[in-house]
Each structure stands twice: as structure tokens, then as C-alpha cells.
């Protein structure tokens, strides 16, 4: 296995990663983007993993040292149509008073309690919008405050208002901002005064829309694409970290839309980005079999009143031989461990630097 460390950032927490015990899956992972969701539960020392296989998704709860405890399979709700509908994404959404598991497919949106035991909401894709030529699906899931945002093949973003408990979920708004299919959505808690943006949505054309959430979402900035799909997006201190189909990772300042960093990070399409927000670590994974870890920071130019410039350092690279990676996530808040899924691979690979 090829691993490449950079000269060494000052942060001693970022060092050699070692392969840990793999977690077996009932079914292999499908070739999708963002095909791994992780729910960290430090209180009970458990980690939940969610992986899409195809028409089904698998949820696992795992104890420390990678010991699998329980697993559950969820299926896409059938609805109208001939074949078993394919699931596009599965993702845990942490809200102020609860955690919901959201599953998107070619038929609609399913929401469950966090362990997947009870479906609390089902939203079918509107067949009136059906086009004879285009595939219909929901894809792109993020929570923001008490909202859950889900993207659609049409470019619309559905905003659901989630109550503190119970199934009384309401479709609050439909955002129109994208001309092509939504690929991913990212959010962060609104922080400093000048960071008003807390949601970023991305699409197949590479266009990014920056929003401020609320009873009515407000579109703040549009960052144009360049003919390449945006496959994954993360948001950190007002910086949008964006992965593209041409293997590039770009960092944009969301308040101005300015491009600050461009990394020729991978030799194939990026399939996943993840953040460890407390320490500013970014993880990029791509179909080229590589996973890279980066350290983000914001540097203020002295005497400058403009927004501080995002900086990035490479920390670590890991090769997963002969594996078309399809998902990757940090497994702890300090970013000292991460997990990877690959197309056709019936296990979750884990790495740790501790």
C-alpha cells in the first residue's frame, strides 16, 4: 500500500495512518458518490456506518476496535415502476433534538429514526415532473438547524421542517437555483457575524449556490461551474470545499464567491469529501484509488480588512489498491481515523493514526 506523507505540518496529531480491522458488509458498495455515512456516538462509544448496496442500504453499528454489533438492511420504497428502485444515498442528519436517517432513491425520500427501525416520513417523487428521457431521483442530503435539505434530479432542493419529535414532518420550501441535477449539499452551524451562509448546494454542471437558512431560505451567492460536475461539497468557516469530476478540489470564500485554492488532487473523479470541523481537516477520496487528508486554515493578511485567505496543506495520502473508492468519512472529531468504501467491495476499510 502506497502512503505518502508531506514534509510535516506543525500539528503532531497528523501522522502515519495504519490500516485497522475491516468491517464486513452483507452486500458490496455501489458505485455512487458520497457512499458512506458515519454517525459518531461518543457517549455510548459506538459508531454507525451506512452504505448503499443498490436497491438496499446497510446500516451497521460498530464498537471500538471495529467489532460489528448489529446490522440492518433498508430498502427503497417501491412506488410505480418496473424494476427495484436504486438508492442514491443514505445519510444521518443531526438536528438540535434528534438524529434522523435519510435515504434517497429513484422513487423518493425516506426518513427514519436514527437506528433505521421506524420510517417516519415518505416523500414520493412527483411523477408529473417526469421526463421521458431523464432519470428521476433524489440525491444530496444535509441538515441545517431544524431543516433537512434534499436535492432532486430536476435541480430543485426540497427543504423539510423537522419537529423535535414525532412524524409531523412538513415540506417547507422548494428552492430553485440549479438548472441540472443536484449532486450534494453541505451545511455548517452559522458561526461568526460575517459568516451568514450556512448551506451550500451543488449540481452536475459544477454550479454552487450559497444559501442562508431560515423560514425562507435566501440565495446569497452563485459560484459558477466550468463544465465539470461537482460531486461533493463541504462547508467550513464560510469556506466551501468542493470536489469535482476532474479530480480537483477547490476552496471558495462563500461571502464573495472568490476562488482561493485549487488543488489538482486526484487523477479521476472525486467521489467524497469529509470534514473534521473542530480541527479543520479535510478528507478527499476519488475513483483513482487514493484518499488524501488536508489541513485547512484561515490566514489573515496583516492590516487587511478583507476576509482572511483560506490555506491548505497536504498531510497524508493513502492508496487503496485496485479499489474504485466511492465513499470516505472521518470516524472521530479529531480526524485521526477514517473509513473508506469501494465499488464491489463488501467491507468498510478503516485507518487510524492513533
Amino acid at each position, binding site marked *: 500500500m502506497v502512503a505518502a506523507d508531506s514534509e510535516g505540518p506543525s500539528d503532531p496529531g497528523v501522522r502515519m495512518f495504519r490500516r485497522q480491522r475491516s468491517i464486513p458488509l452483507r452486500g*458490496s458498495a455501489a458505485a455512487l458518490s458520497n457512499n458512506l455515512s458515519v454517525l459518531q456516538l461518543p457517549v455510548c462509544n459506538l459508531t454507525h456506518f451506512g452504505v448503499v448496496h443498490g436497491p438496499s442500504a446497510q446500516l451497521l453499528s460498530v464498537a471500538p476496535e471495529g467489532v460489528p454489533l448489529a446490522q440492518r438492511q433498508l430498502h427503497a420504497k417501491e412506488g410505480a415502476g418496473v424494476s427495484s428502485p436504486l438508492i442514491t444515498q443514505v445519510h444521518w442528519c443531526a438536528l438540535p433534538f434528534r438524529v434522523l436517517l435519510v435515504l434517497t432513491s429513484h422513487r423518493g425520500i425516506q426518513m427514519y429514526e436514527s437506528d433505521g427501525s421506524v420510517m417516519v416520513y415518505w416523500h414520493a417523487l412527483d411523477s408529473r415532473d417526469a421526463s421521458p428521457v431523464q432519470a428521476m431521483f433524489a440525491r444530496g442530503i444535509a441538515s441545517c438547524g431544524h431543516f433537512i435539505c434534499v436535492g432532486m434530479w430536476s435541480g430543485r432542493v426540497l427543504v423539510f421542517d423537522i419537529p423535535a419529535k414525532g412524524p409531523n414532518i412538513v415540506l417547507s420550501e422548494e428552492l430553485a437555483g440549479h438548472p441540472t441535477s443536484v449532486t450534494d449539499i453541505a451545511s455548517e452551524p452559522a458561526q461568526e457575524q460575517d459568516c451568514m451562509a450556512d448551506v451550500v448546494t451543488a*449540481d452536475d454542471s459544477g454550479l454552487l449556490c450559497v444559501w442562508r437558512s431560515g423560514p425562507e431560505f435566501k440565495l446569497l451567492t452563485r459560484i459558477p461551474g466550468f463544465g*465539470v460536475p461537482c460531486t461533493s461539497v463541504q462547508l467550513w468557516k464560510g469556506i466551501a470545499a468542493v470536489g469535482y469530476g476532474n479530480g480537483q478540489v477547490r476552496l471558495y470564500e462563500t461571502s464573495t464567491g*472568490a476562488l482561493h485554492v485549487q488543488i489538482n488532487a486526484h*487523477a479521476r473523479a472525486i467521489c467524497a469529501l469529509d470534514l473534521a470541523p473542530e480541527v479543520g481537516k479535510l478528507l478527499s477520496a476519488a475513483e*483513482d484509488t*487514493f484518499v488524501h487528508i488536508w489541513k485547512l486554515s484561515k490566514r489573515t493578511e496583516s492590516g487587511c480588512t478583507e476576509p482572511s*485567505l483560506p490555506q491548505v496543506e497536504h498531510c497524508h495520502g493513502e*492508496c487503496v489498491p485496485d479499489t474504485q473508492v466511492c465513499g470516505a468519512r472521518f470516524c472521530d472529531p479529531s480526524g485521526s481515523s477514517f473509513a473508506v468504501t469501494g465499488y464491489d467491495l463488501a467491507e468498510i476499510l478503516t485507518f487510524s493514526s492513533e
Partner: protein
Amino acid sequence: MFNKSFIEELLKPQELYSKKALRTIYDRLAHASIMKLNQASMDKLYDLMTMALKYQVLLCPRPKDVLLVTFNHLDTIKGLIQDNPALLHLVDETLRQLIEVYGGLSAGEFQLIRQTLLTFFQDLHIRVSLFLKDKVQNSNGRFVLPVSGPVPWGIEVPGLIRMFDNKGEEVRRVEFPHGGNYVTAPKEGSFEVYGDRVLKLGTNMYSVNRPVETHTSGTSKNLSSQAQQSIAPNPLAKEELNFLAKLMGGMEIKKTSGPEPGFRLNLFTTDEEEEQAALTRPEELSHEVVNIQATQDQQRNQELARIMGEFEVMDQPRWSASKGDDLLAMMDEL
């Protein structure tokens, strides 16, 4: 097979075929000729086709390159039917239709197509002797994904970080170790009816002079060229598969009243082995090595030679209307 209405039906927007549906179409196509295949040989031929296609889709540098792979297939077919202008026209027409339907799709749409195709091949790990020898497939049935060689067209060689200030001026460049050994892409393949596809995926797997698809550094290059010499395919195997392609290009469907004039294709070393394979074929298609080396069987050589002597290329594919409708109707049912 290149009948206009058949192609039009294929190119209609539709869901991915189920595995059963594709196998049925494949069986029908293979048997719509004088060729006969024992169940076991048919299974092996299908496995070979499936794994070859999985290899091509998986190794495509860009999602859009699945179209170039298809064009390579059609270009090769055209090379085999040079003496049949009517058929050539049909294949050119197919190329034009493909360009019209797929030429304008976006990168994101091709990514979805490729991801959907990959669901069809998920969990298939049948080992193919040719792939194992070429070292493009590991002994566990998984394909090798090289981390060296040219990057896909439109992608830059990884390893560079560029930082810009608020005015958009580049202020810093830093290199980082990306772990691979990549070079720039030489040129883009052509998506026209005629042109250099550049990509080698989808070309004849059995052509002796085919280039090694995986790019290797200095020392390993010698090894792979040695390996290429030692697996120079049995010319008879090459002949059989070219003949198969010729047959599917369209010919009269002979109704056999008397003794069978057709020939039987056996993909095993002996008839007994073929029978045995039919009996012991496992439910899941796993851990089987498909060996496409023809036998030295004298009888079959003579039979093949005799048929090739008799073979007459028809001007028009005798794909009678009822047969075509049957196929389409059958596809509708599935």
C-alpha cells in the same frame, strides 16, 4: 443485428435491462444463425462477454469514454464487413444514431450512466484466463486499477496546490506527493463517425499486436512484453471469434430440414468436459476461469474449414420482419 428498427428500439430511453433479459437477448442473437452452442459453452461465452464489458466500463478513464469503447467495437465490426456495402451502411447509420442520442450528454449524465452500468456488473468476479495472463485481473477476480500512465483527457496530473488572493492573483504554488505516477493525456479520442478513438478499450482483445493497456514503469514493461509473447493466441481461437462476429453481422437463417449444416461451437477442450461443466455449473457465477483457447481437435478444424468454404455473404441481412418483431416483443415482455 444492425437492423434499423432494432437499433431504434435499443436506443430508446429505458431502464437498465435485468440480467435475465440481457442473457435472453444474447442467447437469441447467438442462435439466430447456423451456429449452435451447448448450454455450457453458451454460459462461458456469456461470462466472457460480461467480464470483458465490466473491464471496459470500469477502466474507462472518463465516463464519456464508454461511448468511445462502443465506437471501437463498431469500428472493428466495420473492418470485418468491408465487402458488404449495405451492411457497412447500417453500421455507419448506427454510429450516427449513437452520436445523435449520446453525443450531447453532459459529463454528469455520463457519470450517472457509468454508475448505473456498474450496478449491473456488481459482485461479478469471474476470472478470465486472458485477463489473468495480461495481469489486468488479479487472482481474486478483481481488476487492476493502475495508478500510472496518462490521466484522462480533461484532468490535470495530480500534485499541485495553487493559492490565490482576494484579487484572483496566484500567490503561491506548492507541490504535494500524490502517490501515483501519472503523465499528461496525449490527445482526445474522436466522437465522429470516423476518427482515431485513441482509447484502446473495446478493441479486439485477441489481436496479437494489441498494446498493453496497463502502463508500467521501466522494469515491469519488459515483463509484460514477455508475457504478451507467451500468450500469443491460438490462431484458431482468433478465427472462431472473428467468424462469430461475422455471423452476427447478418446472414441467412437457414431452416434445417435434413442433417444439420450448422457448426457447433464448443468452448471447452473436449465434448466430455463441456457436458461435465453443464452438470456442475454453480448457481452463482463465481471463481470460474473462462479458457478461450481452442482445441487441436482435427474434426472440428475440418468442419470449420468446410463451412467457411461454403459461406456466402448475403447482400442483405435476412432478418425477417417476424423474427425482428419476435425479439422486440420478447424484450417488451421482460
